[in-house]
């Protein structure tokens, strides 16, 4: 039986009726057509589907959609400002070569945001720890770490 949910998505209120078994990832990609959040494995093992829920990272592919009720969700689409300017983290990823195929990037950027929101001046160890739940096959992580470090030094 469909249920109604109300939540804040990228700063805007959203209200819709969904089937109860939907994951947050399905809600975002299939119902709301926000395809920026990716499915890498569907099992919570790669972090490609990472979104922010009340500022904390979660794997949306295994998160029950109904549980966003009354909460704030941020996806990659919500990171640019109203004029479409890139967030400093996005800028740094672009400038430091932290993006190759880009499939892991949306999730990676949001993990970086959660890390920097909590620790604005992380050590290299803390950066590695902060993005450890996001797999990347292309970059070998090092330029991603450099990009995050650069943002923290701004």
């Amino acid at each position, binding site marked *: 039986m469909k249920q109604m949910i109300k939540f804040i998505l990228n700063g805007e209120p959203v209200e819709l009726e969904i089937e109860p078994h939907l994951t947050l990832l399905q809600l975002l990609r299939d119902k709301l057509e926000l395809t920026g959040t990716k499915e*890498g494995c569907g099992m919570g093992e790669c972090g490609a589907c990472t979104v922010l829920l009340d500022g904390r990272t979660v794997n949306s592919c295994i998160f029950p959609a109904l549980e966003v009720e009354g909460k704030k969700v941020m996806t*990659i689409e919500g990171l640019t400002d109203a004029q479409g300017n*890139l967030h400093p983290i996005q800028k740094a990823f672009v400038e*430091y*070569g932290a993006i190759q195929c880009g499939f892991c990037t949306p999730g990676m950027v949001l993990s970086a945001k959660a890390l920097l929101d909590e620790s604005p001046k992380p050590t290299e160890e803390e950066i590695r720890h902060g993005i450890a739940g996001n797999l990347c096959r292309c970059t*070998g992580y090092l330029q991603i770490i450099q990009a995050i470090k650069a943002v923290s030094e701004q």
Partner: protein
Amino acid sequence: MQDFINIGKRIPKMDAEEKVTGKAIYIHDLKIPGMLYGKILYSPHPHARILNIDTTKAETLPGVKAVLTGYNIPTIKFGFYKDNVPLKANKVCSFRDEVAAVAATDPDIAQEALELIKVEYEILPAVFDPEEAMMAGAPLIHEEHVGGKEKKPTNILNLPWRLVSGDVEEARKTSAFVAEDRFKVTWVTHCCLGTSGCVAQFDLKNNLTVYSITQIPSLAQRDYTDALAAMGLQGKKARVIKTMIGGGFGSKLDTYAFEYIAILLAHRTRKPVKIVFSREEEFFATSPRQPAVIDISQGCTKDGRLTFRDIRMILDNGAYTSWGATTPSVMMMPISSLYKVPNVRYVAKCIYTNNTYSQAMRGYGNPQATFAIDSQIDILAEMAGIDPLDFRMRNANTPGEVTPQNFKINTCGLRECIDAVAQKLDWRQNRGRRDGKGLGMASMIHVGGGARVYKSDGCGTIIKIDDFGTVNVITGATDMGQGAETVIAQIVAEALGVRVEDVVVTHTDTDICPWDVGAHASRTTFVAGNSALGAAKKIKHILLEVAAQSMGESPESLDIRDRVIFSKKDPEKKTPLGKALRAAHYTSGGKMIMAEHFYDPANENLDREFKGNLSVTYAYGTHGVEVEVDKETGQVKILKYVAAHDVGRAINPMLLEGQVYGGATMGIGYALTERLILKDGKVMNPNFLDYKMLTSKDVPNIEPLVIETNDQFGPFGAKGIGEPGSVPTAPAIANAIYDAVGVRIRDLPITPEKVLAALQEKKK
């Protein structure tokens, strides 16, 4: 030193913004109105006869629009050996065999329909060890396959890979030291974060469009056209449109069953059909890196000069044939040409088994062969009492050399790479401590100037410039994330005298883009770069001719720099590029500013003896590692990692470093943690939890050392770098472990268990 505006600059990728904002459309994001979703039913047995397939319940499930089996489709044979069909009839030969496919209005219904298909099998005995499969009496995978002199049914493929140069037997007799070892490498897989998939769609006239993530658009177009002919659609067109690609690494160098299945479903339903793999399918139904059993012997003189290299390999071909069976053609490269070896013999057999089948993965056989060769170099050096650093230097390749495989070595920075690594690791000081910490190094050779593995190694480029100076570069190349687009833009911008931001690169549509043989062999910067360079030079010529008229100068006395055409004699005499362009178009008797260039490098196909100058120039490199081994647990920690590469010239140092970091990380996983575990033909770890690719906490701080030898044939001197980073990692690490604790591991991955077992064995 030349004063470049665009070359050698750390320019961000042109598609980075699209990707970092989530706007990029990958195959998973593509939605076409009316699109159906396809799903595939796989075999539950490694080897069985198909007795009956009952699809009636599946067909009547609401939402299901088509159900296909091997019995209701035309025969489409594909693969290098044409031994594979999209849906199997008569029998299944491995767990990943496709038995039926469904198209439905949503993926859940398609999945449900699969569960309603009833297949009856008669289980057949199976064989999973290639050495067993070679023997008489072993179960035959393809009963109609005959081979050998007597043309008897056999599992041994008719691919007698054999390279001989000089006299290995004689050299063995006269060698002062001879090492003999068996090395084993197993399956590992690409782990692209974006899984495989495509969307197939027919128009009303039965012309086909496939939205694809292929690395070989022109060749895929050919494969699809062949399929159309097999479907009775001779003469119909196939168009390949690429979406953003979520990782390649060689995984998309062949066409797969699922693509043909999508095409067949689209044709049957008259609707677009999308098939996208789940992660589990990505692990068990795509083709991994070729495993090998390698028997290798090398010898040297008393003063450490290599005398011969003798290698025999047995390759598990799996149930069907793809590029894995051709990896010997690339393995020959390090075998014949890594270090100076006067006498070489290489024999490889490919054997059918009921395991999964392999294809290309970053290095295409080179990582496998180099693991054996450069591990054994250390073994040989120790026998001869020579420091492995000196041993390598003594045998290092040099510019101008012609190797036993008739490779003509152009630029060669191998000595510089070995030296750079030795310095960074403080080799003389730090090696030989045997206190749990150790140093190791290993080198590599790879094609760096294209590779004529097909009849053509070519790539076409068309450039047109509009009224305002926007340079449209239409290339046959493929950008799968490595940054080919950006590098091509840099080359064109530099050659034309404009800036990178003026250049737009299009590479995604076979209806528009020129021909290219594919993104393999690390050829894109070199071949597509040269192709674009050739077209850019032609366009510059046209531009200068047009400007010459209005400027009252001869074209030869003009040049363009930073969007300004100026007279070389009097640089103050200049005109903005845009003005010259508008003058060209917007006039009577105007001229279109457009040029094309097809560049096919002056390299050679390997002849019947597998000799020939495969590439125009070769890339060299050396990796050095410092490890620490925990003697109680066998765990290996990398303390220092340096990767020196002779790249000709770094067109974009930032992207180049990205290739080194990414390649080396993949290679470290190959050495220490990654393994696709097959048990009786079944993949036991088809998920990211149990397939151990490295995380951000595991990757060491890799230091790339860029050696520029300025190759005369490369665009602005550049050679390839896509694969080299993955090639010497395993032997470098194995050698370092030996230096640290005195144990030599000869099979990958070097797990803590293997190290601990070897340490315990050593104690006894």
